[in-house]
């Protein structure tokens, strides 16, 4: 992976240089330009730890977390014929251990994207380098996305990294075609995919995609977004979307060995699996609140009894069972919001309380969202208060609450309650 990433980075940089010196670009009238933008983001959080969590005995928990992050984007462009982008995040994190008060500091530098674009004619372009391949209509889950790291609906501050890839896209009407290859360490792990998208049907955007890699089997997917009342003023903000994926083997099937024979009755997900997401959103007139709802189903998600068995085993007093169950920790940690078979996500967003020039209420935004595990009834609730009294600065206070029974997903969240304070300075 590392080799491929380095190779992609070098190629991207070389292409950037090549594009800047391309004699064919002489037909353009503008000189190459660089721009730098981003956000400086100090964040502090205090957590109320969940002593009853199955993870409480194994996870290094902290009462308080403080970090400072710089997220920057350096952009090179020469008209639309060539473009280069470096998107990076530097994060310095300090965590205070709840048991002995010791502080652990860690620094990370992540190149989220580093790529170069080259245009050939007015319709065709090539992008090479580390990139986020855009995928799926879903806000909290993308069942059609076989490539990007999965979203974590319980961690909005997670850094979204791209993947090393080569992509060519033909953008035209009524159909656009994207072909891509995802680069991994060895050639036999490479993935190949295609996406066909169209807006030919009135008020709709539809895409069909396919992906195959020898190591991950295949994925077929359909995305459809429809604004059914787009022609009616007042109703034109209502949108619906569907995102579905079918794949040759379970994406989370690493747990297929079972946590311990006989201790949890989980069935290995074998054969083709599927996941589907339905969503709808609209803006409430006058209030201008945006309401959004998403429901999704995973065929390989666990049933109530399976979830209960898994968490029961993880909290077992028997050291043998706990030891044999340890592989579950990493597997469950990889799939927040995707452990069970059915979920509902609800969100209300008021970007500003008023938009009338009010010196106070125009600067206050509110967001309330809830991810509900429909299988076990546990939920993750998050509220956000955003203050923008200073230009290019946003102060955000967030409150997250995870709750549920003892053998449920969010009932076992290591943190019951988390209060965060964040200041974002945009530049």
């Amino acid at each position: 992976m590392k080799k491929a990433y380095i190779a992609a980075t070098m190629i991207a940089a070389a292409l950037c240089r090549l594009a800047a010196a391309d004699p064919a670009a002489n037909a353009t009238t503008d000189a190459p330009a660089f721009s730098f933008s981003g956000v400086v983001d100090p964040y502090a959080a205090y957590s109320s730890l969940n002593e009853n969590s199955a993870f409480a005995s194994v996870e290094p928990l902290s009462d308080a977390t403080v970090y400072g992050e710089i997220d920057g984007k350096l952009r090179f462009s020469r008209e639309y014929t060539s473009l280069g982008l470096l998107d990076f995040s530097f994060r310095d994190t300090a965590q205070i251990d709840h048991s002995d008060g010791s502080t652990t500091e860690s620094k990370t530098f992540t190149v989220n994207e580093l790529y170069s674009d080259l245009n050939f004619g007015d319709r065709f372009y090539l992008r090479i380098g580390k990139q986020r391949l855009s995928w799926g209509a879903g806000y909290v889950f993308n069942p059609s996305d076989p490539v990007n790291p999965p979203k974590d609906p319980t961690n909005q501050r997670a850094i979204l990294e791209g993947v090393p890839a080569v992509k060519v896209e033909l953008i035209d009407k009524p159909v656009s075609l994207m072909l891509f290859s995802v680069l991994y360490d060895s050639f036999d792990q490479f993935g190949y995919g295609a996406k066909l998208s169209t807006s030919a049907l009135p008020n709709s955007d539809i895409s069909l995609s396919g992906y195959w890699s020898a190591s991950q089997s295949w994925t077929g997917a359909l995305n459809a977004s429809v604004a059914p009342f787009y022609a009616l003023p007042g109703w034109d903000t209502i949108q619906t979307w569907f995102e579905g994926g079918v794949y040759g083997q379970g994406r989370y099937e690493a747990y297929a060995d079972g946590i311990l024979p006989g201790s949890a009755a989980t069935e290995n997900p074998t054969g083709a699996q599927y996941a589907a997401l339905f969503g709808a959103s609209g803006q409430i007139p006058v209030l201008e609140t945006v309401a959004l709802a998403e429901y999704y189903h995973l065929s390989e998600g666990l049933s109530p009894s399976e979830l209960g068995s898994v968490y029961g085993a993880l909290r077992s007093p028997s050291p043998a069972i706990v030891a044999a169950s340890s592989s579950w920790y990493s597997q469950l940690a990889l799939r927040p919001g995707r452990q069970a078979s059915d979920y509902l996500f609800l969100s209300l967003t008021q970007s500003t309380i008023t938009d009338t020039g009010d010196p106070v209420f125009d600067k206050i935004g509110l967001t309330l969202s809830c991810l509900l595990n429909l299988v076990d009834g546990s939920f993750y609730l998050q509220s956000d208060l955003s203050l923008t009294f200073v230009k290019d600065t946003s102060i955000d206070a967030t409150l997250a609450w995870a709750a549920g029974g003892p053998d449920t997903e969010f009932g076992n969240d290591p943190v019951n309650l988390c209060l965060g304070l964040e200041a974002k300075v945009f530049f």
Partner: protein
Amino acid sequence: MKRYAIVLMAVCVASFATVAYAEADQAFPEGDVHSYIDSVDAALLPVNCKARMAIVDSYSTGDDRTSEGFFVRKNNRVVWVAVEPASQKNFALLRDEDTFFERFATTNKVVKTSATANSRGGETSNLDLTRFNTNLDYTVSYLGDGSHGGKDCYRFELRAKNRKLAYSLVQLWVDKATRMPVRKAFFALSGKMLKYYDVTSVELAGGRAEAIGMKYVDALKPEDTSDLRIYDITSLASVPDQFFTKEYLESGRLYPYQF
């Protein structure tokens, strides 16, 4: 006798209507209204062009907000990209004929949006930021002469061809001497004026605008205004069609030209 009277009356009404229509059509002294409006639009903004835009929203509360952006136009298709304030940098609005998309400032996500929404905030709707081809959006008829701001003008009535447009009825005053719009007033279905803008400044070069300033006023709350200035208007020989697609916005290539 009664039958003759009805026929005679119908003939009179038809003749009167024909004459009135012919007079109205001929009353416009510069020929075809449609062509004239096209030339007014072209003098303001070339069909293929790029330009920068600065907007100051002022409220009765004394609160002001400033924002800047640029746009690329190809007839009735427009990409508008925000560059200021920094928190809104890379927010983009796409108008592809009657369909609008917005790209959020901090993510690559692109979603459909409404013509009437004001994604940017202030008194200017998404349509206000991208409405450059009058004849494609409205059916135009000549109302007569008038004057506004001390200028001799032609007055036109614009009726929306599409219900999606924010205002069903618009009145337009065009300066006879420069062919530049002087005032545009926007009405609700009920006939109540909702909003208007006055052209506050025009910099001309070769009969074409290089920069234009407009003041949008909320007719229901006249203290709330938006001063919009379009400048660095540059004609382009051609503009690729791909700019005006959802896929292009998703690709994040928002700076096709240097601004």
